[in-house]
């Protein structure tokens, strides 16, 4: 019985698939047909209309959107966590001490020994274990091999140095600073799959920027996950940032747009927009994200950063994620979170190499101040020292 079902399905799916693929191709080549304009979906109505910039923000907001102004209701709460302000930013090396053990284990045998087959194998094991991936590892080792042959190196330590140089060369050379727009408000968009730490990163970024003296508006663009807006709201309270929230299940584009308009109206410099986690395979959700980005650029603000939040434990799928997300929103950088665990986040090597998207920020702990700028030298050094 199953067989029959499969026959029917297989045939029809193949047929349907074939038809559709050709249909598309045929139309593209044949009949001239304009791409249909992006139809405004319901819920985004408030967004699609061009509002008068001077009008009070509240009038444009759909009724469910609330501009929370925590200062009005209670004095800014100085949270103990925030109060313990780190004057010097946490260093990679301190944080990675715990984490690097496995990587260095693999390379311990290399020191003080000659370069032989087992040395190469050790390198390969080390890189693969750090989630660098097969292709990127092969490419790295190829480069190292060429240098070793050319310079006729024989010592294991030299081999290690060459590998470090290669990794630094791949990771460095990117501008990792976060860009601001010439005209306020600047908009930073956080995107990523579920559970990587987007909301937390938004909160930490808000902390970082308010500490630096910017006025920050948080946009609770995650209208899907239960209590995501509450979570961001708590961050807003801690950091003294403003927040715009929408209704649960509402249109995230509308929330982000409203946040930007509200920021412009009250003179905030920076809008940090959180979005709902989504798997990059869900094309409708990726389209929704593309719309968020387009809409965010349409109003008073300018999107200067679209950051992919990536969990350091992510394996080879990270590369596919980066590719899909950059197709949807044109990523400007990666935030590598949870690097204080035992995972190495080696996939960023592949992402930088293949897609040219640099790591800009790194999450090194749970405290508010644990989001720091990425530094290639320290990253590599910490992995090897």
């Amino acid at each position, binding site marked *: *019985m*199953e*067989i*029959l*079902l*499969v*026959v*029917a*399905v*297989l*045939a*029809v*799916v*193949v*047929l349907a*698939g*074939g*038809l*559709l*693929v*050709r*249909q*598309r*191709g*045929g*139309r593209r080549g*044949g*009949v001239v*047909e304009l791409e249909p304009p992006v139809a405004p979906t319901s819920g985004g109505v408030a967004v699609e209309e061009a509002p008068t910039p001077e009008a009070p923000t509240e009038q444009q907001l759909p009724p469910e959107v609330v501009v929370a102004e925590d200062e009005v209701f209670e004095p800014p709460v100085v949270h103990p966590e925030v109060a313990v302000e780190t004057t010097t930013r946490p260093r990679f090396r301190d944080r990675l001490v715990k*984490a690097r053990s496995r990587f260095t284990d693999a390379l311990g045998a290399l020191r003080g020994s000659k370069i032989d087959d087992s040395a190469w194998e050790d390198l390969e094991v080390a890189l*693969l*274990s*750090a*989630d660098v*991936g*097969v292709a990127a590892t092969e490419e790295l080792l190829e480069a190292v091999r060429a240098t070793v042959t050319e310079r006729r190196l024989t010592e294991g330590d030299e081999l290690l140095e060459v590998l470090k140089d290669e990794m630094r060369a791949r990771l460095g050379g990117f501008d990792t600073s976060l860009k601001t727009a010439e005209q306020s408000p600047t908009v930073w968009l956080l995107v990523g799959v579920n*559970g*990587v730490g987007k909301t937390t990163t938004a909160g930490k970024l808000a902390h970082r920027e308010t500490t630096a003296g910017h006025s920050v508006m948080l946009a609770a663009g995650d209208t899907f996950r*239960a*209590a995501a807006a509450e*979570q961001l*709201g*708590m961050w807003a309270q801690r950091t003294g940032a403003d927040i715009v929230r929408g209704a649960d299940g509402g249109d995230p584009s509308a929330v982000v747009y409203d946040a930007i308009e509200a920021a412009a109206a009250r003179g905030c410099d920076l809008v940090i927009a959180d979005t709902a986690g989504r*798997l990059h395979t*869900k*094309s409708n959700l990726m389209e929704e994200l593309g719309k968020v980005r387009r809409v965010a650029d349409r109003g008073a603000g300018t999107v200067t950063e679209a950051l992919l939040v990536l*969990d350091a*434990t*992510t*394996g*080879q*799928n*990270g590369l*596919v994620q980066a590719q899909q997300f950059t197709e949807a929103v044109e990523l400007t950088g990666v935030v590598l979170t*949870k690097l*204080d*665990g*035992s995972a*190495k986040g*080696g996939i960023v090597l592949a992402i930088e190499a293949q897609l040219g998207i640099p790591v800009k920020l790194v999450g090194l702990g749970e405290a508010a101040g644990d989001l720091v700028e990425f530094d290639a030298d320290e990253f590599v050094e910490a992995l090897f020292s």
Partner: protein
Amino acid sequence: MFETLSDRFDTIFSRLRGRGKLSESDVDEVLREIRVALLEADVALPVVKTFVARVREQAVGEQVSQALNPAQQVIKIVHAELIAILGGETFKLSFASKPPTVVLMAGLQGSGKTTNTAKLARWFKAQGRNPLMVGADLQRPAAVEQLRTLGEQIDVPVFSEPSDPVAVAAAGLEHARRTGRDVLLVDTAGRLAIDAELMDEVRRISEAVQPDYTLLVVDAMTGQDAVSTAEAFHATLELDGVILTKLDGDARGGAALSVREVVGRPIAFASTGEKLDDFDLFHPDRLAGRILGMGDVLSLIEKAEQVYEAEEAEAAAARLMEGRFTLEDFLHQLQQIKKMGPLSGIMGMLPGVPKEVRNAEIDDRQVGRVEAMIRSMTPAERAEPTIIDGSRRARIAVGSGTTPNDISMLVKQFTEMQRMMKKMGGAGSKKALSKSRKGKKRKGPGGGRVTARGGPATPMPDLAAELEAHMGRVGGARSAGGKLPPADDLTLPGLP
């Protein structure tokens, strides 16, 4: 982005095809590809090594001399081995004699503990139980609110209080006893395995509630780190099973294999979507195919069974093979398929679909257009599309909001398909005969059909054998590509 194992093997196979058996160097070559495939699926390196060694042992052994198609033989060994590991011991859940049965959820941050606590509660509820959820994640802001919201959705109460996680868990257990709840699910805060303090905390929670089951929630996208995480949690908590989450993405989920190997505990549940009912017991065979990138026929069948009437499908298949398949049938099938979810997802589950087709963006809205076109036709036109002339075409185009060009394209392709299916159905018996003679197999791009059955009867058995081979997961590879001409023929010319 990654080639599936099948795609990878195509090159090797084309060279190996025609040889009777595998030499040791052939095996090595195939094993190298398997190693890469496993690593790209995020199986941990040490696990890959022992796994490949085991496969080699079997592949170089006596079984190879009987191999009809050597490459398929290796994949079969790999697949069987994967299933053996993943499903060696299944998760059995028995309820505590003295309720409540306590389940403790643990895992890294962001692996999906809170969501899956609710999903599991819903699952228990569907089993006729009365679960209570305890929100012991007091760390992440609003985690308890999240659990409460989810609890409301599935109508399961949530217990929590703003004190200390261990105290909350203990009080939750008390509350469950008092209110007569027979299953207690304890959601804990995400923690890093190397954070000694938090690991100690979860150990104390565990001691306080004495869980019957401790489940580790693992993200299917996890890389090499899965091993160290699982080891650390197992050392602290004595795991009983694993919940694999986010399987609805395109990660291969090799982490599951690593965890299974290292911890030796079965994967109990799999979470395959954002909705609370996208959650079920774990099926090892499906993940095995997925890790190897072989498609997921079984899930497809299951989905099909949900929407198809068996007899109806049988009739449709028969008509299809005899070339009596009309546009009306096609429309009907299309609607059934639409019920199964997005077309691209279904294509991804099919083995043997050429990667050009699989990777082609299929816009589901196009299905609507095709539907509209067929609906704008008269019954006579649907049964015999060749009668559609210029004026009928114009009428259909107006009716469906398309262009006459679109209509002729649809009709043309449909007729083409019809012809091909007919040919295939008719040729079935002949082919099977010629094949059974010497086990020769060089038909079509994938070749590699080895089933020496068939016989004269209806065309069905041959195709049935074909699919049976798939379902036996012999090859995945391209055997379908070889036998089901539409897969290649239909799409090649039209591809961008």
